[in-house]
């Protein structure tokens, strides 16, 4: 898909994000907005996904023969749900049920409600990269050449399990894995530098044996280019880690540049102000 078309999808996804969070007055808009371009770039351009003859997405848990994506920082569920719906896994109208009673769109993604596109529960941080490694190793056993992608937060790098996985993947040559860190420099209690300094994440992953790449996560052309480069690198004996610089709240000016909108919902006025900055491109649900 050409970049301008992907940008249009991302604009609609951002509308979906703020509308979901506004409707239930809870959820995490900041990181969702920051990662919208990545998820659109993956699902609408870079990932090979199963579809029927009519082009409708087909979901099965095993995902054999197609690329897989895991969201480890499950709190940015609004962007995941919007992208899955807009990609055709379930009707966009279902986004209206986000975080409400009896919904398949739980606060954090789960498989429990059998929502198409979700393969693991996430929310308790630090587990997704391990899950993605397992899925990638299953692909190798199945002689399946498709890739496994996983997204983590930079605050999530505080979790010890992340570093267990960081050690394991290069040791076992899990070279069909592309991990991405949302490097927005913010976590709940403030800037990551103040809360728990990650220092040089790139040097750390390189020292663990990863192929480290950088991406401007809010520049669609760069998102697509770096993802394609990561795919080209796969199969070379090393897992790839992309440090993706993003702006929390990207696309909505008053939500950018602070951790304030990590887990706060906009009121009616703020919703209107946000939507005014985000063209409706695919039709609101």
């Amino acid at each position, binding site marked *: 898909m050409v970049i301008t078309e992907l940008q249009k999808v991302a604009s609609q996804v951002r509308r979906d994000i703020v509308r979901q969070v506004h409707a239930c007055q809870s959820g995490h808009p900041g990181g969702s907005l920051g990662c919208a371009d990545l998820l659109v770039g993956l699902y609408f351009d870079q990932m090979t996904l199963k579809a029927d003859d009519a082009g409708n997405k087909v979901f099965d*848990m*095993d*995902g*054999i023969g197609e690329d*897989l994506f*895991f969201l480890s920082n499950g709190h940015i569920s609004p962007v995941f749900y919007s992208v899955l719906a807009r990609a055709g896994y379930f009707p966009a109208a279902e986004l209206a049920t986000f975080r409400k009673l009896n919904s398949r769109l739980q606060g954090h993604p*789960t*498989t*429990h409600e059998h929502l198409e596109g979700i*393969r*693991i*529960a*996430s*929310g*308790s941080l*630090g*587990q*997704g990269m*391990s*899950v*993605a*490694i*397992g*899925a*990638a*190793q*299953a*692909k190798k*056993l*199945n002689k*399946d050449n498709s890739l496994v992608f996983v997204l983590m937060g930079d605050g999530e790098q505080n979790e*010890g*399990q992340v570093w*267990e*996985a960081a*050690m*394991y993947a290069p*040791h*076992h040559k899990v070279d069909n894995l592309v991990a991405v860190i949302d490097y927005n420099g913010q976590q709940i209690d403030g800037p990551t530098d103040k809360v728990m300094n990650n220092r040089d994440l790139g040097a750390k992953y390189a020292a663990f044996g990863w192929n480290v790449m950088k991406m401007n996560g809010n520049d669609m052309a760069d998102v697509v280019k770096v993802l394609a480069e990561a795919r080209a690198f796969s199969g070379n004996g090393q897992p790839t880690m992309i440090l993706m610089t993003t702006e929390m709240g990207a696309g909505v000016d008053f939500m950018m540049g602070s951790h304030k909108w990590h887990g706060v919902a906009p009121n009616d006025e703020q919703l209107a102000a946000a939507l005014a900055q985000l063209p409706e491109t695919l039709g609101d649900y």
Partner: protein
Amino acid sequence: MKKYTFTEKKDTRSGFGAGMQVLGQTNPNVVALCADLIGSLKLDAFIKENPERFFQTGIAEANMICIAAGLTIGGKIPFATTFANFGTGRVYDQIRQSVAYSNKNVKIACSHAGLTLGEDGATHQILEDLGMMKMLPGMTVINPCDYNQTKAATIAVAEHEGPVYLRFGRPVVPIFTAPDQEFIIGKAWMVNEGADVSIFATGHLVWEAILAGEILAEKGIDAEIINIHTIKPLDEEAVLASVRKTGCAVSAEEHQIAGGLGDSIAQVLIKKHLAPLEYVGVEDSFGESGTPAQLMEKYGLNAASIVEKALKAIARKQA
């Protein structure tokens, strides 16, 4: 009292290793993971015969559990293995979110459960694992009693779709169940039919229950002994049918009394058939270093203790 004899003693973990070797040869989807305890888990034969289906995780149990969850996506049947303390308590949140809530077909298979781990002491002697695992929705919890039953259970859980906690141990214990037995998950095994008291035993306490039954028989007491190898789902029908007949019960397990098999039985009896129940288990205490036999005696997890509790249950019934 039905006579049980044995000609050989083996550890239940070796039964697991033997079951894994069979699975390696019969089920190409079975894979194994281990956190730096291959020898302790008796995985050598499986690894030798199926090197590409084994994943060494190093001393990183959280990573191991979640990798196992990921391996199910693609159709694998992973057995995640380590000591029971590190495979349950240390990684409870990983099991809860990535395995149980996500309903992944992961088999958590753990050795060195309970006091019989022995000299390593309380840091390693987990006595809370059955309780933690049975509280998780959808989790099947199995604690077999000897080498043959553990081997059969290992093979059976691979056929079962859904998360399983399979718990076994380190010491050599009598082999008294049939080789190549059929293991039915959730189906209790009638060890000895009796009329005066129901003894519900699991794991290493099943052999002790048999010894207790012989002592009780000498006293003129006809004990019914039932092996509950599957803690969850509990064979409620077997529990109720027995207690309706005998009128009182004893539970016996190598676990904290709080949250263990006895508590599961108590829930059934309270809801459906009130009767005296006495518990043989660890009473709100950590373990310590010692030989397995010394520890089982000190903490009251042996035949003498079962006899004492059986007499107490019968007395309460008659009071």
